[in-house]
């Protein structure tokens, strides 16, 4: 793998849970969270191609912050001065990123939970592929379906697993705090 890709996978992706929580706290439209997360990733990736940040986590949050400010500016719902008033820096989430180093056993349990939550057909494909170690072709033969079906289910399983592993579920508890900036009337024009 290219060095930068390797860096991104090792240093940035493990922060997905905290990043998602941060975005959820500061952006009220849940439907746009994925969008903001991916845009943040893309900006970080591009910046890192020029220069690798030394402290990854603060940098990631800074990029997310800037992105939110850009979006707010475009929406022109909020004046720029008031942005500085936001709870940005109230990111008490900065405990040591245990998220980045989930113990291996927990990791397996996390994976198993994510696996169990897949829709039945998708789950069966993932189990045969990942647990039993069959190839896609063998999975198709075993289940009596076409290879295209298997491929589609693999694609689906991949997305669902990424979503589950990215900590979206754990982030639900911070839901109430997401409306932080709406509760501050002086911030909203």
């Amino acid at each position: 793998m290219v060095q930068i890709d390797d860096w991104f996978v090792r240093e940035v992706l493990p922060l997905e849970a905290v990043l998602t929580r941060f975005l959820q706290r500061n952006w009220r439209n849940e439907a746009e969270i994925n969008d903001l997360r991916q845009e943040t990733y893309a900006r970080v990736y591009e910046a890192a191609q020029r220069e690798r940040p030394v402290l990854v986590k603060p940098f990631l949050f800074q990029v997310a912050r800037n992105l939110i400010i850009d979006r707010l500016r475009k929406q022109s719902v909020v004046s720029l001065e008031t942005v500085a008033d936001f709870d940005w820096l109230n990111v008490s989430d900065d405990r040591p990123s245990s998220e980045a180093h989930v113990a291996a056993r927990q990791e397996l349990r996390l994976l198993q939970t994510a696996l169990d939550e897949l829709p039945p057909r998708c789950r069966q494909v993932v189990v045969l592929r990942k647990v039993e170690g069959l190839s896609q072709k063998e999975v198709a033969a075993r289940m009596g379906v076409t290879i295209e079906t298997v491929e589609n289910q693999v694609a689906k399983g991949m997305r669902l697993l990424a979503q589950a592993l990215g900590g979206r579920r754990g982030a639900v508890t911070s839901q109430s705090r997401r409306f932080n900036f709406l509760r501050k009337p002086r911030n909203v024009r």
Partner: protein
Amino acid sequence: MSVDETEMQAAQWLAREDRGLTAEESDALELWLGASSLNKVAYLRLKASWERADRLAALKRPGLRVSERAPMAVPALVAAGLVLMLAGSAWHFWPAFRTTVDTRPYATAIGQKQEVRLSDGTRLELNTNTRVRASVTATGRIVTLDEGEAYLTWCMTRPALLSSMPGTGGSPIWAPNFPSTVLAMMCG
């Protein structure tokens, strides 16, 4: 293009990759990845979690299911931690542990698994992307996990020395001779 569509395309590419790409598809994938950083990060994100799922292979053996194995492995590791110092000195002063007969490396590639039987009957199961070194001595067996995940099963009366922290100078961990113990070693 929406982020959702991008993610869907990334998943399709990875699913194709998972079954094997043709040369033509490889070229097309390179083009797609180069087209935008959004494509690139969507791809890397899904790929990383799909590779994480390789760990699920550990569920294959019945009896190694997480829920069943954990209660056994936790006390084993706690006990191992308690006697770490003891083992450290044993390592130092007990030549038998050091004059290992022959230390053999075993390794698996990504997606590969391997079962190894040491000469004293200890069974060693290597999960995907794992490197271990194992040796059998007059007084026990020494297994060092350098990377990945391995399961050790033994039912002998002799203890085993386990080491699973390559970054810490490899101080060995002593595992007591529980009868017929399965110990999970994981790294990283």
